[in-house]
């Protein structure tokens, strides 16, 4: 059952929680991470644009600007260490009219104060760099980059796990009590004692904070819907392409994001909703995505769409005000040992390395943490067959027959990669776990070809009855069972 007593427990296994857990694992301490879902990163961390921002939207002098700038300059190093894709593709914020050109200069002013490198460029520059994009002028940010947000979250968690962090999945916090110098965290999966709590529960951070006697926070869930385009459309853009953000929208406007895997994302929309769990997509918004994307990329059409999804921002700015505010990272006024992270929305992914450092410094000041000499920050991900040279592919197929079987034909994922994904260090044994680790089912056929094959491998590897195979959580049976009349 693992350990029950910790020095520090991180609540929430998103990008921020896992980054903190991994940063903490550099020190000698008993660390736990609690996540209510069946895997890390299944909230906003797997459903954002995967953009590493260069820091031109954060208010000057804010904590947000600090951690964002730190993140942008350290991201490549983090991705290198954790074996996660990273590409500094650059970004164009494209103006469609004179009024918007003025906005570009404003953004450039703010961004430059934050230390971001930004250039205002003309029509010719746009046409030269992005021939399919329409616009009258743009702000060019060479340091903007892309990564795989879910791979990074998984990588942080795996590396934290390798370095001794106890990661408890399918574990939902029901209640937190204070007992002398310790907190007792009651969950659906037993109780845990800990000296420190780090609340990085995202959409649920206000709920968790309430156990620290802190009722000031309120999270306003704000949904963003996305479209994913077929890799065949990947030539349409090679950089991030954003519109000038609409005023007080609370988002950056519907933009185009090339992903590290060669897809293009359209989105996200920006809609305050009532239910933090409502990750649905809607017809109205999906229609709007195509319409707005067409404004600056006329070549886009619906036939290129292979998937839609939504993610929910945990905003602390109420809908009637809109826009952005600073991140809140502070000790609870009642308990020093209870650190709340509230309103970590965009650029939360970019800021994760900086936030992790910031939070650990807060604890270090109270606890005087000791470096752990055994810490190993290197993590190796699954070998991606499709990304290798022909020579390397041949070496693998020569030595291991599991590389000779392509299971997912859209993404060219081999049987060995499926097996590697199933045997992940966190012990995630479901279809979604394989999806986010090996990319199987993420291509244009969305699993039509490979699901039957993956199921077979899951049965072989896990030795499970067909009716016990899960999509993600324990309530998500994939199938009802065997057909009648078979032995």
């Amino acid at each position, binding site marked *: 059952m693992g350990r029950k007593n910790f020095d520090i427990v991180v609540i929430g296994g998103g990008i921020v929680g896992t980054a903190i857990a991994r940063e903490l694992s550099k020190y000698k301490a008993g660390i736990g991470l609690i996540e209510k879902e069946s895997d890390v990163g299944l909230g906003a961390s797997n459903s954002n644009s995967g953009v590493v921002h260069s820091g031109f939207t954060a208010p000057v002098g804010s904590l947000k600007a600090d951690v964002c700038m730190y993140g942008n300059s350290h991201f490549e190093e983090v991705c290198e260490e954790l074996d996660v894709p990273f590409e500094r593709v650059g970004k164009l914020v494209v103006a469609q009219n004179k009024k918007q050109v003025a906005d570009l200069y404003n953004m450039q002013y703010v961004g430059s104060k934050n230390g971001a490198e930004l250039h205002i460029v003309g029509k010719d520059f746009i046409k030269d760099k992005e021939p399919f994009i329409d616009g009258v002028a743009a702000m060019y940010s060479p340091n903007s980059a892309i990564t795989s947000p879910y791979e990074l979250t998984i990588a942080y968690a795996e590396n934290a796990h390798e370095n001794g962090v106890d990661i408890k999945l399918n574990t939902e916090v029901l209640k937190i009590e204070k007992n002398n110098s310790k907190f007792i965290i009651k969950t659906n999966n037993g109780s845990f004692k800990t000296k420190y709590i780090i609340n990085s529960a995202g959409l649920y951070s206000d709920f968790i904070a309430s156990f620290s006697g802190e009722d000031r926070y309120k999270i306003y869930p704000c949904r963003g819907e996305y*479209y*994913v385009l077929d890799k*065949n459309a990947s030539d349409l853009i090679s950089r991030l392409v954003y519109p000038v953000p609409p005023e007080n929208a609370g988002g950056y406007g519907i933009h185009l994001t090339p992903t590290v895997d060669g897809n293009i994302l359209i989105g996200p929309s920006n809609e305050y909703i009532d239910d933090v769990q409502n*990750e*649905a*997509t*809607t*017809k109205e918004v*999906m229609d709007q995505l195509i319409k707005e994307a067409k404004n600056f990329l006329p070549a886009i059409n*619906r036939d290129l*769409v*292979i*998937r*839609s*999804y939504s993610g929910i921002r945990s905003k602390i700015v109420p809908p009637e005000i809109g826009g952005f505010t600073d991140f809140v990272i502070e000790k609870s006024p009642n308990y020093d040992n209870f650190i709340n992270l509230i309103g970590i929305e965009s650029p939360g992914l970019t800021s994760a390395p900086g936030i992790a450092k910031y939070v650990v410094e807060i604890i270090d000041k109270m606890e005087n943490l000791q470096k752990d000499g055994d810490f190993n920050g290197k993590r190796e991900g699954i070998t991606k067959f499709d990304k290798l040279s*022909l020579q390397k*592919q*041949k070496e693998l*197929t*020569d030595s291991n*027959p599991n590389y*000779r*079987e*392509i299971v997912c*034909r*859209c993404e*060219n994922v081999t049987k060995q990669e499926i097996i590697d994904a199933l045997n992940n260090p966190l012990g995630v044994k479901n279809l979604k776990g394989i999806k986010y680790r090996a990319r199987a089912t993420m291509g*244009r*056929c*969305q*699993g*039509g*070809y490979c*699901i*039957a094959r993956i*199921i*077979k491998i899951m049965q072989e590897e896990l030795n499970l009855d*067909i009716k016990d195979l*899960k*999509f*993600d*959580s324990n*309530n*998500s*049976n*994939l*199938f*009802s*069972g*065997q*057909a*009648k009349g*078979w032995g």
Partner: protein
Amino acid sequence: MINKELVIIGAGPAGLAAALSAYKEGLRDILIIERENKPGGILKQCIHDGFGLHKFREVLTGPEYAYRYIEKVREKNIELLTNTIVTLLTNDKYIKAINQEKGIMEIKAEAVILAMGSRERTSGGISLPGDRLAGIYTAGLTQNLMNLHNIKVGENIVILGSGDIGLIMARRLTLEGANVKAVLEIMPYSSGLKRNINQCLVDYDIPLKLSHTVVDVKGDYRLETVTVAEVDEKLQPISGTEFDINCDTLILSVGLIPENELSKQANVQLDDITGGALVKDNLETNVEGIFSCGNVLHIHDLVDYVSDEAEKAGKAAVEYINSGEKWKKENLFVEPGQGINYVIPQVISKEKDQIFSMRVKKPDTDKMIKVTCAGEVIFQKEFKKVNPSEMIKINIKKEKFEPLEAKSIKVVAI
């Protein structure tokens, strides 16, 4: 590097028939590459009957139909590599493939026949609104799981789309004890064959709701409810008509897409309407020596016609290999006109009798299929009923268009 005269990609009904036809024309250096562990393609999972009526004047199941071809391919010792997936095809007919025994293979072919079939349109492809839940499957995958892996996907079922696979699965799941609550179709008519509507829905009292679609899916990790609404003429949901159906499974039978990913790698030009290659009357694509047939060329309703088409492609590939002859320059473009969705082939030679395959845009009665060239009517035939789900085939003798001065012929349904 392995050299081959003819490589056929896919051992489904198209690939098998093309191989046998090439063999019959005297070619011996043939390689069929199949990614599954057995030949037969989609027919392997089509355990219902209704195949072979045109070709064999018999009612066969899918596996039986496939076996007629597989048996002959074995008898003739035509080389067939199963469990082998092609990952690259170039326009100079270089092929990279991977299989269990041999690892990565590089093959150079003189001619290639594309016979990769089709894939299913997905929930993403139709922008299905709602949550991302367990319990949403495409119809072909459901059929594969049920008939080849003995897996029942769910108990209370709603099917979106009345394509043939959806209809067949409504019956199949009912026979396995599932409760199929409804088949929904966004169009005002079904895209499935009439006989399937009768035999799969009417006979089992399964309601078919035309002009209805799914506007929301909800559940706690696994599907629990679909919200259904009626749609207007523009196929937009009509507000106020929504109702919920409780179910644990939603099956999508919302269309097939020709699987042309390898074709695209080889710079084969595709038709926007069919999703398949643009072909000449010998089924050669714009890339010399690359031919296309079966569902990868356009979606067929009857496998018998796939076999016919593939035989033609096999024969043409052998002609190409033997003569190295380029396709005749004297040609006519074939244009679909009023009421016609598409016509295959898109380019014809003036020197040959021609067979055209076509589909109308919508179901109708008393329609005249009329073909004109240089202002003259060169073919016309009356149809009591036309339906997009039923492919129309017509033959025209070369004498009809050969003497005419024209660049194109036009096909209409009026």
